[in-house]
């Protein structure tokens, strides 16, 4: 419901002073919101800007002039590039595993009445309500206690662990508004359980599954705290930055951050555009009341 189409109260009877006061209040609120957005976005702008900084020192904190040098050599530091590649590998695998496990769990939780359902809901919620530092420390306790070597595999295990709950929550919210009669129709027309799932259910919950997958990928590639506990000597992109922050941060960190940023924004815009297009196409089909 658009605010503009709602019937508006006539304010003609208001004294000019009240009307003026209201206008000032409205303006102040909008200004406040704009300032809040600026607070959110200034660091982003600074990061993008400093990828062009012609820095001479070990640190990239003071603006010293414009250069494209760092963008010409984004992969100049092999350690940094390797770390980013590791992060992408972990994120890809973690996304596949966590999305699969989480989606199945969400289906079970929304679709079926069974003993232990509310306990399971609570159990899935607890990791979300646990600080990362505790998740990292406890997982490290397990690995130390059973003598499991820390490295790529332990990072992957950790990332799937903290992502699964997010996947469940995301997919569950979509399944709740789901019209079961479509599935029943498919089965009435002779589709079996698996056919119904792959040809009716999955396409309908696909947007939520994709959203959950994107969220998992983003959480994984961004995770520092839990990874820091369980990485052993393996270095991911955030771990490289953490190490570099104490010594010197090359501007390539900003360049790669900017690249990931621009890529993600492009993906977002593309997804929204695709969705709009799909909606427009769907609108052509007659809809029943």
């Amino acid at each position, binding site marked *: *419901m*658009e605010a503009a189409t*709602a019937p508006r*109260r006539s304010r003609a009877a208001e004294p000019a002073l009240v009307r003026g006061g209201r206008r000032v209040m409205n303006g102040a*609120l*909008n200004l*406040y*919101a704009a300032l809040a*957005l600026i*607070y*959110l*976005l200034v*660091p*982003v702008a*600074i*990061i993008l800007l400093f990828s062009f900084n012609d820095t001479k020192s070990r640190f990239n*904190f*003071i603006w010293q002039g414009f250069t494209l040098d760092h963008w010409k050599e984004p992969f100049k530091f092999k350690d940094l590039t390797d770390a980013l590649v590791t992060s992408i590998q972990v994120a890809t695998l973690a996304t596949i595993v966590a999305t699969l*496990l989480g989606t199945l*769990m969400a*289906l*079970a939780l*929304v679709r*079926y009445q069974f003993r232990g*359902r*509310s306990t399971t*809901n*609570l*159990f899935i*919620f*607890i990791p979300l*309500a*646990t*600080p*990362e*530092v*505790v998740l990292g*420390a*406890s*997982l490290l*306790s*397990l690995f*130390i*206690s*059973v003598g499991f070597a820390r490295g790529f595999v332990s990072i992957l295990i*950790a990332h799937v*662990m903290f992502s*699964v*709950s997010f996947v469940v*929550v995301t997919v*569950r*919210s979509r399944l*709740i508004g789901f019209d079961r009669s479509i599935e029943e129709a498919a089965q009435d027309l002779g589709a079996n*359980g698996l056919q119904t799932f792959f040809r009716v259910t999955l396409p309908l919950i696909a947007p939520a599954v994709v959203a959950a997958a994107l969220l998992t990928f*983003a959480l994984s590639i961004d995770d520092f*705290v839990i990874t820091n506990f369980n990485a052993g000597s393996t270095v991911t992109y*955030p771990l490289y*930055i953490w190490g570099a*922050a104490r010594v010197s941060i090359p501007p390539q960190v900003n360049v790669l951050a900017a690249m990931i940023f621009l890529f993600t*924004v492009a993906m977002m815009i593309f997804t929204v555009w695709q969705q709009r297009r799909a909606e427009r196409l769907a609108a052509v089909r007659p809809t029943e009341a």
Partner: protein
Amino acid sequence: MSRARRRLLPYALLSPGLLWLVVFFAVPLYYMAEISLKTGTLETGYQFTWHFKTYTDAISNYQDQLLRSFWYAGLATVIALVIAFPLAYVIAFRGGKYKNALLLLVILPFFITYLVRTLSWQTILDDDGWVVDFLKTIGLLGENGRLLATRTAVVAGITYNFLPFMILPVYAALERVDPRMLEAAYDLYAKRRDVVMRVVVPAATPGIVAGVLLTFIPAAGDFVNAELLGTPQQSMIGNVIQSRYLEITDYPTAAALSFILMAIILVLVLVYARFVGTESLTGADEAR
């Protein structure tokens, strides 16, 4: 499908994910509890001795960091709410066709790695940066005043990093309010303050509840902001846990502190849940 298979199906769907969570979330908590009750050092080896004194020692040695963590987290949560509520209100009720674009702006910071975002505050608050210059010019900051390495910087960093977690749920709650409700309230001669307090705030409450948890919990356990923007004087309980575990290898103390942190948060969440109800907390109520 037979009845028996139908009954077992939900468990089959649940078991892989549940198994993962049990083995890598629940079981680790058991091992961490065990470690917290051991004595010894990494060199001499640890013995399990039911050493509960680690807990009391940890609390008395690190009470400053514990209190500071919850103080900073509370401060950041309140500031985040003060920033988020009007912004969410404006997006929800005045965003019009730009709603989605404005929301995209809100989540843009997430597209940059957490650490890099925090480091950019080092740039912004730098001693020679223009923010410090400006504050000195208008006299809000003394000649030798700094922003970096202060409590202000740490709290600002925490607030910044978790702010979208506050904005999004508050927005989601406000978005469900029919603007005609506000019109109706005005038509019935409600004053703006009454409309906000009696219509908007109650509608936003579930979002505020979620936002407070999503901001406060990670903020209380955070150590990145204190490490990068503060000094040891601003160090929080997360800093102690990570350095005890990873640098000093004093595993029992680190494990005990993790449980203390978790216990305090759990108590706070439970107290909070008494006000708002468990179901709305886990989002499970919508699951019919």
